[in-house]
């Protein structure tokens, strides 16, 4: 009865929106929490609207918000999140990765979110495709040009274009350009945006795109085209591939992203937990943060929903096969000597969306519409520069640190 008296914690999250994941979040991951939680997953648009509206109206219902790093900037710039430095200090013993803790400060002096869980993007291939790998290529050390050749081989053999990317409206293609292509080819995302290296990168990618299934521009998640066999080799967020791996673990292999001239660029995905200003049940929210960052809960999260821990802990051996495959690929991606991790954008605030748009548009104009690469890069560089100047965001890794707004050379 005492438990029932407790006010519940309203926990709104942009993660775990797929219906099965939400079910598992409620029924398994949150099962052992002592308080009551109402977990409501939401798309990022209504999510943002809701937090902003509640803050503006001065009547907050939500006590805890969970989102990706990129979901928070508009909330912070509207001043609707409350710093959680105190919570962070309670969680000293968690052994958070310092990079993540730092990202949680959003380029300010305060901790705005507590790291919650992480993921990244990897590649998955149908085993039938392996026989067409270019001579001497190994999936674990694949280069971009080998990927192109692979695609060419596949098309020659099957008559179909079997590479795939999530370039649909809800797909994460822009992360591929920001965090994989650009770093691999230029060791930068912003400053060398229109460099000659970037030019070369785009022309090579364009060549590769000939072997990409044109329906890619409608794919949001790659697991379905993989399962349907419309695509044999694909890149996507691990959470958006997991279903395929779990359903047919024997049909697929998972492996790291390809390698470019500067190494293997890759980008982690970080989700965090934050507390809105005026949260009706801050104590409950803090307790829930404490619960979700416990090592055993972090592992349950991985097992159930495929997101990796943000604290240093050892993975158990009995992971589901799909998760295991993903974990292995991630490990190979992060630990190889060519690893070139890039950070999520820092300090862009509400302009994060427009930053993404620069990359999406560049992709669409060069690859899909076949516009002249130079002209497009110059034009979009101007947009990128404007975003940077408006936000005065300094460069973040892998771009070299800058004084003042990150320059677009």
């Amino acid at each position, binding site marked *: 009865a005492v438990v029932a008296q407790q006010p519940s914690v309203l926990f709104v999250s942009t993660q775990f929106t797929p219906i099965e994941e939400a079910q598992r979040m409620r029924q398994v991951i949150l099962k052992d929490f002592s308080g009551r939680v109402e977990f409501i997953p939401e798309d*990022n*648009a209504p999510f*943002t609207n809701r937090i902003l509206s509640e803050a503006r109206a001065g009547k907050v219902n939500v006590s805890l918000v969970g989102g990706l790093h990129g979901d928070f900037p*508009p909330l912070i710039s509207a001043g609707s999140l409350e710093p959680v430095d105190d919570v962070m200090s309670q969680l000293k013993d968690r052994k958070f990765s310092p990079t993540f803790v730092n990202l949680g400060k959003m380029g300010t002096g305060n901790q705005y979110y507590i790291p919650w869980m992480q993921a990244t993007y990897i590649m998955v291939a149908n085993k039938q495709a392996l026989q067409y790998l270019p001579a001497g290529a190994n999936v674990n050390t694949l280069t971009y040009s080998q990927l192109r050749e692979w695609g060419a081989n596949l098309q020659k053999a099957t*008559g*179909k274009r079997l590479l795939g990317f999530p*370039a*649909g*409206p809800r*797909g994460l293609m822009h992360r591929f350009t920001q965090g994989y292509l650009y770093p691999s080819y230029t060791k930068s995302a912003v400053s060398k945006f229109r460099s000659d290296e970037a030019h070369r990168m785009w022309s090579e990618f364009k060549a590769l795109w000939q072997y990409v*299934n*044109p*329906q890619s*521009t*409608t*794919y*949001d998640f790659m697991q379905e*085209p993989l399962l*349907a*066999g*419309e695509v044999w080799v694909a890149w996507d967020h691990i959470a958006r591939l997991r279903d395929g791996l779990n359903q047919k673990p024997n049909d697929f292999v998972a492996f790291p992203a390809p390698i470019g001239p500067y190494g293997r660029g890759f980008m982690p995905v970080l989700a965090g937990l934050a507390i809105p200003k005026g949260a009706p049940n801050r104590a409950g929210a803090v307790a829930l943060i404490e619960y979700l960052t416990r090592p055993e809960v972090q592992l349950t999260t991985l097992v159930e929903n495929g997101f990796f821990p943000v604290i240093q802990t050892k993975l158990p051996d009995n992971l589901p096969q799909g998760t295991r495959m993903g974990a292995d690929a991630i490990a190979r991606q992060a630990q190889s000597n060519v690893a070139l991790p890039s950070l999520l954008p820092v300090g862009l605030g*509400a*302009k*994060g*969306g*427009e930053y*993404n*748009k620069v990359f999406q*548009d560049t992709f*669409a*104009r060069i690859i*899909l519409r076949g516009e002249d690469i130079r002209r497009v890069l110059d034009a979009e560089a101007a947009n990128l520069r404007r975003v940077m100047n408006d936000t005065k965001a300094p460069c973040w890794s892998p771009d070299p640190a800058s004084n003042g707004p990150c320059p677009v050379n």
Partner: protein
Amino acid sequence: MRSERYIPYVLILPSVLFLLFLFAWPLVEALLLSVRGGDGRWTLEHFQRMASDLYFKDAVKYTVLLTVVMVPLQVVLALCMAMLLGGIKRGRDLFLYVWTIPLGISDLAAGIVWLSIFTERGYLNSFLQAVGVIQEPRLWLSYETPAMLFLAVVAAEVWRATAIVFVILVAGLQLIPKEYGEAAEVFGATPWRRFWRVTLPLLMPSLQVALILRTILALEVFAVVVALGGRNLPVLAGEAYFWYNAYQSPGVAAAYSVLILGISVAATLVYLRLMRSRQEAAA
């Protein structure tokens, strides 16, 4: 009874108050968004950004094209259905029911339904393979086949939204006394001319409503387009949505909305002009 003159105002008052509260006020805020910069000053910046955007021209083009193709198609189809219904003696109820089913289907669901047909491994390809037209699946929904994609969107929208036109027209048709049709028949009108000269003009008020309604909604198509073609077929409402949500730029989104509003107003005025109702002529 001079006092009669206030009656219409009393009748519309509740709806006016209601809309002022629920619509006008948020609308003004939204409109302000489109003409104010981040610092609160008046600006056309959002409109400029909209106009110079990569997808803007296509969005305008496809939205208008979709409207121009879809709306007449739906109206004609609905008219045919409504007239057919008059010619069916038995099973009228059944057809009425079946034809109105799509009324209850959301654009979300319609998108999913037609995706299952047009997707690479969908029913269309399965069917074509079964009848031997193709061996391997063909792609219908990619950026390389804009015409086919356009047709798919049209098919889905026609499938989904013809029913409402149909229902409005059937309701209107029932109010036309049958003696007008009989008189026309006696005076030598073929069914075809009877339809044009008598039924259609008498149906004008309903037709006008249906047309305006469908046009405005067609200018806002979005969910079905995105479900079938992603952004390969950009449309205005979709762009507004992307700017608002993905790019977090309410100003430009509001500019798109203002544009949609403008086109809708223009279209509506044109309809009202072209199809002035008899009531006005009579009074």
